[in-house]
């Protein structure tokens, strides 16, 4: 039972191992705060859609399976979109276009069709939670790398400060002396950092397999 929860985090991490759902990853990792918001949104959608699809899996007829699943996923994505629009309008203007794209995210559809439609409810719940956590961790790592190199800061709570009354912006290197590499804020830097990160992880895996 525990393996359903943890497999989405390490062994089958959707971004670093399965290489699925990369579209929003590159766009939202300009700062750690955006990465966290996107990761939590995907975790919310994954958790609820996996659970509900697993509950109704025996009632849905075979022919309308996939449109029904897409409808359920789209409903929860709309819920997230409306919540974000209402409570965090600034973040919504930055990453707002990528929230509806969670509907066609390969991870959400893949787990729904490949796992939740066949397995028990509790296992699907854990599976969705695990993959959501894995996605969140991968986003935070990538966002951290891109923001530290591209901006010399780590922004955890900036635009949400009105909601939470806390502001957490950490200056990693001094602002005036060390200039950041602004290429990492651009799309080119996004592709580069993700490609190098996946390549390094693959190389470590191959070396470990070779040593055994």
């Amino acid at each position, binding site marked *: 039972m525990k393996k359903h929860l943890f497999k989405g985090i390490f062994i089958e991490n959707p971004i670093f191992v399965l290489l699925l759902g990369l579209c929003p990853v590159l766009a939202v990792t300009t700062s750690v705060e955006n990465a966290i918001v996107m990761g939590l949104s995907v975790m919310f959608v994954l958790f609820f859609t996996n659970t509900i699809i697993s509950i109704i899996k025996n009632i849905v007829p075979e022919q309308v399976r996939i449109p029904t699943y897409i409808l359920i996923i789209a409903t929860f994505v709309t819920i997230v979109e409306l919540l974000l629009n209402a409570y965090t309008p600034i973040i919504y203007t930055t990453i707002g276009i990528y929230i509806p794209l969670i509907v066609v995210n*390969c991870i959400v559809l893949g787990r729904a069709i490949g796992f939740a439609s066949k397995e028990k409810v509790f296992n699907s719940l854990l599976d969705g939670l695990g993959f959501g956590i894995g996605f969140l961790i991968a986003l935070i790592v990538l966002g951290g790398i891109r923001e530290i190199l591209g901006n010399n800061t780590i922004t955890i709570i900036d635009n949400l400060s009105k909601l939470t009354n806390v502001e957490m912006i950490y200056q990693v290197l001094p602002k005036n002396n060390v200039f950041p590499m602004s290429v990492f804020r651009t799309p080119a830097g996004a592709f580069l950092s993700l490609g190098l990160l996946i390549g390094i992880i693959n190389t470590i895996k191959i070396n470990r397999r070779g040593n055994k």
Partner: protein
Amino acid sequence: MNLISLLISSILIENVILTRFLGLCPFLGISNKEDGAISMGISITIVMVIASIITYILHNYILVPLDIEYLRTILFILIIASLVQLLEMFIRKYFPKTHEMFGIYLPLITTNCAILGVVLLSRNYNYTFIETLIFAIGSSIGYMLVLYIFSNIRIRLEESPIPEGFKGIPIALVCASIMSLLFIRYVGF
């Protein structure tokens, strides 16, 4: 807005793949056959243009007057899924030869971020009908262009000595980053 500048910006400057990060799955998985890229590009063009027209009419004449704009994500994705299904059946019945050429790519386009992304963007920017059409055509031309260039790069990559850990998607992402550097020179980040 100037239509020519909109066309050029959607092809080159704000390219669908390299600047907006939409539609990456086929881009990273494209085989090194050139006609695969062109076929995929043509299918995407057809779906994108028709979907843009239908969603424009639906959004502006039904959703907005009834004040139910929040349903647009659900309705747009259902329209795109049904459209792809209908198109595939139509092409299979009336143009069987064309179906062999690029009919197999059609079902994959349903979950392509590019179609839904372009459709939603044109609604966010509130384009007129002509602007929506130009944006859709320009985006799909840009998509096809990048896909074609990249399939040729893939052919050369196959013969190069790449480290084991980087083969496949990592080296594809690094190549995409260099391509993106060229394209964003126009924007001036």
